[in-house]
């Protein structure tokens, strides 16, 4: 039976480069698939692009390719990536420059665009596309003037087109994570664009491997103590067969483990209704998925179904949503908790004195309830507790308001209850972006694929 061997190179912007380097040296793969984009990433990238027109892509793609490209070229491994982010053309230019520098002439670099609809939003609104928020039902008009970026989660068509034109490296914008894998599957296995069963099965497989080490022992809660050598974790290497079934393994001589347990945990990660896993290419049904251990570090994936692709595509818009001001401070024995609460009162009073404005605040006691906050429990009044760290954060309308949080906490060092420490140095003020999920009819989106041959 025909098959294709896919390697997971990166799972997010900032992910470790070493698993991919180990993989291209030691594993038998034809494609290295790399996801660089999370929900917030597109907002960050569009902000970078607005400041400097040749930025707006995830810059880790360059050191990444520097590490893997010579070996990929030698072994004929193709690279599929969504590092293009908000600016696939600028990204591709840098990649082409790198190919030249490495002397890899003749390589074909493709860009896949068409996901960025920021310039079309008002025209589409005028044409009756509502872009209502799919989570809340709110109308876009509520935040339209704050929107900085609008990208459609696009499918694998552009990647398939690029591969058909012989591309060695494919740089995409906001394609779905699954498309990075489904593209090479469709190209190699000859699946039609409306072969829903195969595409659904392939998408289920893609979901199992798109988060890299999370399928091969990373974060494994079912037995993290049994995972060896996690600091040299191997990423998934997956053989996908023509019938949509697959065998998931990992790079030889690496840490971690591939078991039914590790793959099961990844399967339920960031999934809503498992019978209707919506993507741009297909609706995948993983609700009846079967996973079998077929060898050491080898799990066979089967019984995933597919249904026709949805009539609409998901759009994520990013909008400016204020700033966050943050500080933290520590008190020690004796009476650490009492002092911490007094320190917090000191901070609140000082903020009131400077007419502080915020839309939400949060207090966490680190070491006690930093993950759960006051919704769950107050710190105990234990006079013997060794130390307690207070974290205070606030959502503020402006940068100036957000800065007040740290400024007004600094006097805790000299003027507050006895023995404050650990306030640290002034943190940078973080701008907040809200995500506005909405829909667009798929026929309004046209994907463009461009292939460039690297010349000296």
């Amino acid at each position, binding site marked *: 039976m025909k098959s294709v061997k896919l390697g997971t190179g990166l799972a997010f912007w900032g992910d470790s480069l070493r698993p991919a380097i180990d993989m291209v040296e030691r594993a038998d793969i034809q494609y290295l698939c790399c996801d660089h984009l999370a929900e917030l990433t597109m907002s960050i990238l569009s902000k970078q692009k607005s400041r400097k027109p040749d930025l707006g892509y995830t810059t880790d793609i360059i050191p990444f390719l520097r590490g893997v490209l010579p070996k990929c070229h030698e072994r004929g491994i193709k690279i599929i990536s969504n590092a293009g982010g908000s600016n696939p053309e600028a990204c591709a230019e840098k990649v082409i420059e790198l190919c030249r520098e490495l002397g890899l002439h003749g390589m074909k670099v493709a860009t896949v665009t068409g996901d960025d609809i920021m310039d079309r939003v008002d025209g589409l609104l005028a044409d009756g596309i509502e872009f209502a928020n799919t*989570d809340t039902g709110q109308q876009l008009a509520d935040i339209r003037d704050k929107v900085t970026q609008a990208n459609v989660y696009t499918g694998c068509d552009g990647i398939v087109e690029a591969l058909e034109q012989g591309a060695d490296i494919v740089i995409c914008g906001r394609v779905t994570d699954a498309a990075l894998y489904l593209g090479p599957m469709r190209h190699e296995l000859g699946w039609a664009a409306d072969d829903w069963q195969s595409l659904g099965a392939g998408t289920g497989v893609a979901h199992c491997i798109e988060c890299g080490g999370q399928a091969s022992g990373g974060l494994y809660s079912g037995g993290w103590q049994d995972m060896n050598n996690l600091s040299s974790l191997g990423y998934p290497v997956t053989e996908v067969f023509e019938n949509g079934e697959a065998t998931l393994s990992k790079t030889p001589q690496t840490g971690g483990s591939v078991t039914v347990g590790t793959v099961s945990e990844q399967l*339920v990660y960031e999934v809503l209704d498992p019978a209707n896993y919506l993507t741009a290419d297909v609706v995948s049904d993983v*609700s009846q998925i079967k996973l079998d251990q077929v060898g050491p570090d080898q799990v066979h994936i089967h019984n995933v179904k597919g249904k026709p692709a949805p009539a609409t595509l998901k759009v994520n818009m990013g909008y400016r949503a204020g700033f966050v001001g943050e500080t933290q401070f520590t008190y020690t024995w004796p009476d650490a908790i009492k002092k911490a609460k007094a320190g917090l009162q000191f901070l609140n009073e000082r903020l009131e004195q400077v007419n502080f404005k915020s839309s939400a605040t949060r207090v966490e006691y680190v070491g006690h309830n930093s993950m759960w906050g006051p919704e769950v429990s107050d710190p105990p009044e234990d006079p013997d507790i060794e130390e307690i760290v207070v974290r205070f954060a606030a959502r503020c309308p402006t940068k100036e308001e957000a800065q007040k949080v740290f400024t007004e906490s600094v006097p805790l060092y000299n003027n507050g209850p006895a023995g404050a420490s650990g306030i640290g140095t002034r943190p940078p003020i973080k701008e907040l972006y809200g995500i506005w999920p909405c829909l667009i009819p798929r026929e309004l989106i046209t994907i463009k694929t461009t292939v460039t041959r690297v010349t000296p």
Partner: protein
Amino acid sequence: MTVRVWDLAHGRSGDKGDICNIGLIARSDEAYERLCRQVTSQRLRDHFGALIKGDVDRYELPNIKALNFVCKGALDGGGTLSLRSDHLGKVMYTWLLRMELDDE
């Protein structure tokens, strides 16, 4: 003897906007059946209290003995806006693992 969800299952959680999904994977067929009986959407909602503001839906993946809980309004506005240290809901599942089950 107190039986917690953790005695019967392991898990993972993550974010999608202001939705946190929590997956539980049972350690045996019997454990899966008991979790199906006892860990209902309402039971989970009550256990999390104010941490989850919206509805909770439960889905079953019987062949891998997994339950998936989709919790709306569970991340203080979503990963990009949340003031929580756990703004992506990475450890939300551990709060569920601590839940005590009824005797059977």
